[in-house]
């Protein structure tokens, strides 16, 4: 939507020049020679009043996101639109105010985005509070661990369980609270899972406030924000001490197990080596509302949420066939028809009668709901960010039109006015340059946002040659202009798994840079080649024979936005910043080597580790 411009003349504020965009806002009432008071069109009364005041006081006035209701367009209801409105008094030759300049830029979309983002922010805060309350009231201890194994957060239940003061140095103490026989294994297992970027599930003994060691089940999942490596693991510790004791009891005999299991408010069961359940404890009956006969040797499957039954059954048959422990997270129907999330675990033990299965279902419903809330919150936040990006993006786009208008007015001025003073011509050039610069900055700002949004694009195996050729096709003009030869060699590593848009953007920036900074003294030669490093990780280089550049000790400055090596060459320098951002966000590294007068080589290590 282009900016609306109108001139209003004399104390009656009569319409003078009114461009189409302004006419679209005010309506047909804006006829040359009529006063705004008799023909206000859509201009609200308060704005009319302000116009009068600006005229009288001679002080300009700007209103941001000014609300103007527009009449119903055919087929739709009345719409509210928002405008940035500027009122500029006009004086002739430094004399008294003789008229007003009225600018109006439609910012409805930005305003709506801003309002939506505001609502989302409030909603996120609300969720945040809910999350905290939930975190601190579930029976389990919840925690967050970073990639280095440092605990970022433990819920208050941890302090309650361990009896440690809130001032305790968490990371120094928690390994010491693990039973010495379990410590090394726990550290190793969590380390291995974090290195692999996976979740974990293991049991260990931790010292309780009374000095007793209790068996806990630690389960955690990585927080995935594709395509980055996970940064945090969120998990929960559940006490499974009674279950462990029961399993021990089973070794001593069925009778002892049953006696103990019937006194425990958890679902406990045993199965024959063939996988048929031959005992459910009393609590199972209470929870399900079914008798042991009604449940039967395989009837537990019927308790699961229907969509989960087939998968659960298949895994159970596999466990029976292989003897491997069974574990899964399932919704189980309670007697009142409500489903609650349970971790169902079983393992094979041997008692006096040979191999048997001992199983337990732990209610983790609250914990699971907590995770769901967490997920919702992440989604909401991601959406908010996207909306804000869109906001910046559209804003930069919408700024372009007023800029074009300015440029048009300026050209018109240059055409009609005559500049006698040579200094004025210089100023004219400077204005010209500033306008061009502003235009580029806007374009690149829009591109930055667009790229940031594309950062999480899905990866796919890409044929380097076809992507590079596609990019070069778009750079045909520049290649010709630089009289460049571009050599592609991808034999050593022909494919790369990456986001397509990202790869294209990286190649585009590196190639257009190589062409842009070509040495005018010699024809440009650019080489693009891929290979694998000693570790088998893919590398790509773009080498030119151009101007080269002085590398500061800190290479990173090359990649700062708006950092420019050759000010006489166009471009605001956002390109390299983008390339750098894309590469590091996907776990890679960008290297540059350059000699002034000889050329520059950019090398991308797609995967750092």
């Amino acid at each position, binding site marked *: 939507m282009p900016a609306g411009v109108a001139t209003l003349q004399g104390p009656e504020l009569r319409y003078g020049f009114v461009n189409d965009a302004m006419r679209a806002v005010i309506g047909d009432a804006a006829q040359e020679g009529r006063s705004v008071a008799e023909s206000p069109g859509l201009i609200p009364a308060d704005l009319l009043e302000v116009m009068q005041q600006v005229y009288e006081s001679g002080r300009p006035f700007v209103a941001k996101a000014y609300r103007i209701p527009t009449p119903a367009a055919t087929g739709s209801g009345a719409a509210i639109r928002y405008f940035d409105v500027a009122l500029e008094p006009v004086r002739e030759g430094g004399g008294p105010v003789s008229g007003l300049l009225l600018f109006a830029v439609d910012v409805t979309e930005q305003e709506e985005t801003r309002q939506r983002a505001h609502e989302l922010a409030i909603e996120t805060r609300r969720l945040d509070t809910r999350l905290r309350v939930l975190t601190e009231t579930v029976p389990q201890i919840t925690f967050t661990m970073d990639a280095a194994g440092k605990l970022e957060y433990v819920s208050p239940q941890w302090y309650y369980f361990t009896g440690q003061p809130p001032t305790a140095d968490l990371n120094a103490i928690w390994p010491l609270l693990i039973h010495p026989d379990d410590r090394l294994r726990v550290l190793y297992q969590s380390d291995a899972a974090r290195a692999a970027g996976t979740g974990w599930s293991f049991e260990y003994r931790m010292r309780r406030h009374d000095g007793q060691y209790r068996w806990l089940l630690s389960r955690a999942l990585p927080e995935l924000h594709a395509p980055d490596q996970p940064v945090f693991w969120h998990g929960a510790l559940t006490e499974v001490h009674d279950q462990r004791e029961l399993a021990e009891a089973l070794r001593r005999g069925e009778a002892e197990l049953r006696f103990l299991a019937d006194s425990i408010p958890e679902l406990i069961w045993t199965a024959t080596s*063939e996988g048929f359940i031959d005992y459910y404890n009393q609590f199972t009956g209470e929870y399900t509302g079914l008798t042991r006969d009604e449940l039967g040797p*395989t009837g537990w*499957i*019927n308790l699961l949420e229907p969509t989960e039954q*087939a998968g659960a059954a298949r895994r159970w048959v596999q466990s029976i*066939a292989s003897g491997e422990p069974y574990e899964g997270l399932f919704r189980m129907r309670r007697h009142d028809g409500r489903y609650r999330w349970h971790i169902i675990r079983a393992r094979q033990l041997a008692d006096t009668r040979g191999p048997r299965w001992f199983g337990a279902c732990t209610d983790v419903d609250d914990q699971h709901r907590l995770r769901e809330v967490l997920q919702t919150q992440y989604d909401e936040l991601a959406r908010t960010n996207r909306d804000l990006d869109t906001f910046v993006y559209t804003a930069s786009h919408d700024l372009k039109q007023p800029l074009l208008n300015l440029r048009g007015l300026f050209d018109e001025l240059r055409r009609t006015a005559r500049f006698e003073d040579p200094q004025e011509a210089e100023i004219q050039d400077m204005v010209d340059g500033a306008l061009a610069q502003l235009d580029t900055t806007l374009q690149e700002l829009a591109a930055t946002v667009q790229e940031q949004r594309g950062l999480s694009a899905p990866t796919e195996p890409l044929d380097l040659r076809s992507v590079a050729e596609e990019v070069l096709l778009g750079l045909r003009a520049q290649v010709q202009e630089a009289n460049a030869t571009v050599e592609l060699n991808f034999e050593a590593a022909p494919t790369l798994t990456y986001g397509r848009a990202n790869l294209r953007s990286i190649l585009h920036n590196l190639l257009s840079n190589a062409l842009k900074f070509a040495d005018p003294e010699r024809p440009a030669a650019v080489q693009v080649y891929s290979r694998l490093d000693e570790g088998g990780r893919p590398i790509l280089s773009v080498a030119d024979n151009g101007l080269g550049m002085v590398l500061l000790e800190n290479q990173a400055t090359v990649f700062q936005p708006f950092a420019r090596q050759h000010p006489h060459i166009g471009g605001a320098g956002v390109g390299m910043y983008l390339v750098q951002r894309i590469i590091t966000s996907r776990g890679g590294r960008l290297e540059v080597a350059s000699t002034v007068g000889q050329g520059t080589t950019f090398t991308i290590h797609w995967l750092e580790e």
Partner: protein
Amino acid sequence: MVVLRLRSISPGGVSTVPLFSMIHIVYMSRAVRPLSDQDLQLLLDQCRQDNAQRNVTGVLFYSHGNIAQLIEGEPAILEPLFDKISRDGRHSHVVKLVDKPIATRSFSDWSMAFHPLEPAGFEALEGFLLPGNLPASPSTLTIADAMMVDLVRLAVFGPDAVPTEPAEPVHA
């Protein structure tokens, strides 16, 4: 607000009165002594005839003395038949795993799956299946019942007989 409920008369309407006129029984047992090819073939012939007459369908698994059988039919036929089978001197340790009403049959006839010592003569035999060629559990079984069949098959034939691509029974 008044909600008018019309009685559904569409053919797709679900009958509200489940009418289970059939049951199925699953049991496992041990052969008293290993059954020879002749023993097994005799059993196959005898049972196929008797079962066809009385509309009994199902499947029997045999391997290395392990026996498991699923039979389906009318309760008035199955209850006495199971009594007779469980007292049959050729096997012992009969453990009934399930005995319950079913909505429909899952097997079209009665068949037997085992590893004959001399497979040549058996391949063409009606009602005979090689354990390796067993079809996945029919989708008319509930998931719990299909799992039961998978488990007894596993118990009789061992891990190699577990279908690598298990059927995903459609849940009713």
